[in-house]
């Protein structure tokens, strides 16, 4: 049971996010405007105001017009800086590139490009951008995840000083890589970034909460573990049980033979087919060169199993071997190569920890959203 203040806080944050969704809708590209910019005096700004008021009091009590004038000057500077800060920040336009997948134990990054603003193409935003994740992940379930696993939202602020290319007018855009930490595997829609700037004098903090409408797959943490290797030929029997720990063993490419019908397609040397139309198949020296399916008995803890499978996927791909994965509801046909690895990893990442029997038909490409919706359902 969540405690009372925490729930209130959660509620408030949800309200805030809903309000923000209406006010600053998610988009790949943001051109800041009156709607999306918030501005308030910073700590320095408040002390500047208090200082001005103190000077006013001092000037009044000493009947000293110069002190009064100084105080009014400070207040006017404060007022003008409000507009300057806003003006500067309103020149900012950002565009996000689709983020690359990463493992949950590592740090990913969201790359944001600074682009010329649509309304003010000649001027650029200056100063230091302080970027922070408001909520790393958009959906609600991760907040529960996070609170369960005691990994709070990434509170670190990242600073990027913007290039001054107003004079140089070089059109080369600046790219800001914002580190991204999601400690759980899965497919996530990224949440809002808080981008702040205090450019000319630091008297005001100008900020915005932007949702770049990006999704990222967070792979499970690779961890070595025992896996079962089945030959495809012997279908579902798990006859040859071998504890494979050293996967870089002999699996050298041996020869090219004429292709015979019945041989697995992934053995075909497509290069040769493409070049001269000859169907040849590759054969490997080791007995493992046959396509295999990696699996783990379903009695193992699901996270451990997924970590082990992730590790196996990476190392088998590094060794350029053909493999498929079979675990619980997940069925991936044997294949090899980088693409295959990412497919496997994504499928593993999105494998629902609670739906071992619920999703027999979920194939790997369609699984992303269905699993997500299931998981939200299961959370409720």
């Amino acid at each position, binding site marked *: 049971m969540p405690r009372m203040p925490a729930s209130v806080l959660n509620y408030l944050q949800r309200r805030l996010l809903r309000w923000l969704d209406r006010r600053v809708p998610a988009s790949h590209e943001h051109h800041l405007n009156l709607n999306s910019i918030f501005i308030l005096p910073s700590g320095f700004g408040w002390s500047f105001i208090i200082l001005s008021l103190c*000077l006013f009091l001092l000037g009044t009590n000493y009947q000293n*017009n110069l002190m009064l004038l100084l105080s009014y000057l400070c207040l006017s500077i404060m007022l*003008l800086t409000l507009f300057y800060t806003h003006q500067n920040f309103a020149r900012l336009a950002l565009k996000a590139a689709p983020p690359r997948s990463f493992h949950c134990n590592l740090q990913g990054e969201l790359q944001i490009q600074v682009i010329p603003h649509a309304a003010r193409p000649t001027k650029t935003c200056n100063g230091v951008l302080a970027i922070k994740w408001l909520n790393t992940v958009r959906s609600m379930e991760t907040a529960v995840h996070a609170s369960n696993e005691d990994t709070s939202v990434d509170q670190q602020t990242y600073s990027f000083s913007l290039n001054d290319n107003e004079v140089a*007018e*070089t059109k080369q855009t600046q790219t800001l890589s914002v580190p991204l930490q999601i400690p759980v595997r899965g497919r996530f829609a990224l949440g809002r970034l808080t981008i702040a700037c205090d450019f*000319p004098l630091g008297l005001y903090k100008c900020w915005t909460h932007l949702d770049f409408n990006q999704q990222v797959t967070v792979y499970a943490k690779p961890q070595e573990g025992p896996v079962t290797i089945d030959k495809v030929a012997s279908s579902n029997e798990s006859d040859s049980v071998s504890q494979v720990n050293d996967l870089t063993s002999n699996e050298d490419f041996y020869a090219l033979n004429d292709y015979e019908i019945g041989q697995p397609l992934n053995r075909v040397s497509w290069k040769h087919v493409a070049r001269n139309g000859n169907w040849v198949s590759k054969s490997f020296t080791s007995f493992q060169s046959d396509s295999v399916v990696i699996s783990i008995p379903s009695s193992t803890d699901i996270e451990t199993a997924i970590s082990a499978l992730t590790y196996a996927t990476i190392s088998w791909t590094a060794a350029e071997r053909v493999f498929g994965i079979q675990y619980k509801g997940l069925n991936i046909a044997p294949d090899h190569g980088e693409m295959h690895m990412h497919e496997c990893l994504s499928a593993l990442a999105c494998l629902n920890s609670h739906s071992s029997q619920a999703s027999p038909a979920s194939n790997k490409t369609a699984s992303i959203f269905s699993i997500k919706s299931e998981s939200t359902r299961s959370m409720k």
Partner: protein
Amino acid sequence: MNAISLSRFSRLTVFKRVFSQPKSVAVLMLCIAFSFILFTLTTPLMTWVLMLGGCAVIVRTAGLSALNSLPTSRTVNLLAILAVFALSWFGFSVGLLDSMINLLTVACALKIMLVEKKRDFHLVICTCLFLIGCGFISSLSVFAWIGYTGILALLLSATAIYHGAGIPKTKSIKFVTVLIVQAFPIALLLFLLLPQLPPLWQMPMSKSTETGLSDTVTPGDIASLASSSELAFSATFKSEEEVPDASSRYWRAMTLEHFDGKTWSISDKRKQAEQQLAYMGKSSPLSVLAEEDSLEVINYELIVEPTQQTWLFALAPSTPNNIKNSIFVRSLFDFTLQANNPISSKKAFYLRYYSTAQITSAIENFEAQLNLQVSMNGNPRARAWGQTLTKQYSSAQHIVNAIMREFNQRGFQYTLSPNAMPTDPIDRFLFEERSGFCAHYAGAMVYVLRAAGVPARMVTGYQGGSALNDNVLQVRQYDAHAWVEAFIDGVWTRHDPTSMVAPSRLTLGLEHALEELGESRQTSILGDLSNAAIFATLHSWFQQLDYSWSKWVLGFDNTAQTNMLEELLGSLTPQKMRVVFLSAIGLIGLILTLYFLPGASRNTLSPTHNILLNAIKHVEVKTGKERGVKTLSAYLAEVTPLLNEDAEKALTLLCNQFEHEKYAPKTHDAKVYSTMKHQLKILKNALK
């Protein structure tokens, strides 16, 4: 040899590194600003605080390079504890206000050594701004204001550079300059229209800055004032005719009625009597005078320099015009004027001078009795002389005349550096030394008069004043003077014994009198410089500026504000005030839109394009051929025959570079910009 050049080289690179980091530059500028502030605050600050501040600046500046390390926070904390002890030790002697300023400075100096984070930087900036405010307590001139605004600009530039990350420093400085220039009209508007409030509570006053006349006179004090040529006050009259003659410019400040044999002071009995009379609600003769309509009245305005005292200087008899005065002025029974608060900044006072009225007494018996008291402490010969005078002459007026004659005829001399007269000062002055200045003469005369049975008192104030304008008199500290009032036939009459000895002191001023006597005021060497014509012109110009500044900026108070608004709008009603405030807000809004609304004329062309257009404009003026809508190359072909060789070459180069920059794939263009600028210069020269 090699080592030296190497070390020099490394030092150079160190400097370069420091200047390439915006934060280091910002801290450096902060240090410079702080040392300027220290420089301006030398009066209120104690020597050790100044030294601490200086050391902090040096340490911090040295610490910017990696070669020297900054003091650790432990060292600084230790220093802070020491400083707190020292401050609390010395704090009692310098007074609350000064110790506060010292405390702020110490805090700022200690923090400046530790500036690491943003927060520290902001803290130091705020403290420095507050110190600037404190600086205005004591220095109020135009130049102080300009200087402090400069320091403010420096502080803001430091902040801008600190926050500006990569942008060039010159740009930050330019931005701050523009910002201050833009902020100024708004500040001025606020200054003119926001109500000027009366002091909300009593503030501690600086002890050391009490200036001008003191309320005791030991002959010698006024001479020390004579070495100061600082302005005491300026008096503005309505017209030239109303300015009093040189011989009647007696600015009365206070009456000294008690004498202990050495020192004249304000009588305690007088103070008690004033209190009692005020308690009884009796109106002073001056307030009675103010209600009379029949008398001729001269209105005038005094702008008094800060004295930290409550005494006002007025032509006698004058009544305060308290409707206009921002500080209430009480009129006392001895016809002196006293403000309710010490005059801590330049202040305007409005007074009415009744040139035909006389100084009467509402409490004759008390005053007569008080002013007949003769101190039996020493001075027997003077007392004896007084008694003989009583026997000799029948009326008080005759006695006065006799004494004046004595001063005139017995070889008395006027000097600002008389010999010391520690015992029996009046006897020694009258019968042995026979040389002294106004306080000696006035003191001796009052003493003798009292001994002779004529009630008399010493009055101090200023005498004279130089004309700044036709209707403005400026009175300086060296115009301080003392004279005698004798109570004759129910009226206090003024007698100035100094006039018997040095008549030019009264008609031409102190400087002239001393010149005649072959003495000088012992001022600085700069005094000689002021004789040169150009310096005299400059000097008078500065005086004029200072006067205008005092009158319009420093003297701008509630009255002046109301006057200004009344002149603009007629009589003020609450509705009108509301309109004024709304229109002030509207005006500020208008100013802001002027600054920030992207105007149609806003230049959005690239800098290189601007240069080209500039060049073409020059060529158009020279050749008289308009470019109109022709293409660049067509126009170029048209005008080249009309230009000389240099101009043609420069223009062609400019056009080529512009086209290259505009249409060719991107090249590095900062260089193009500078070469184009150079070509433009050549072109301009060639077209001349």
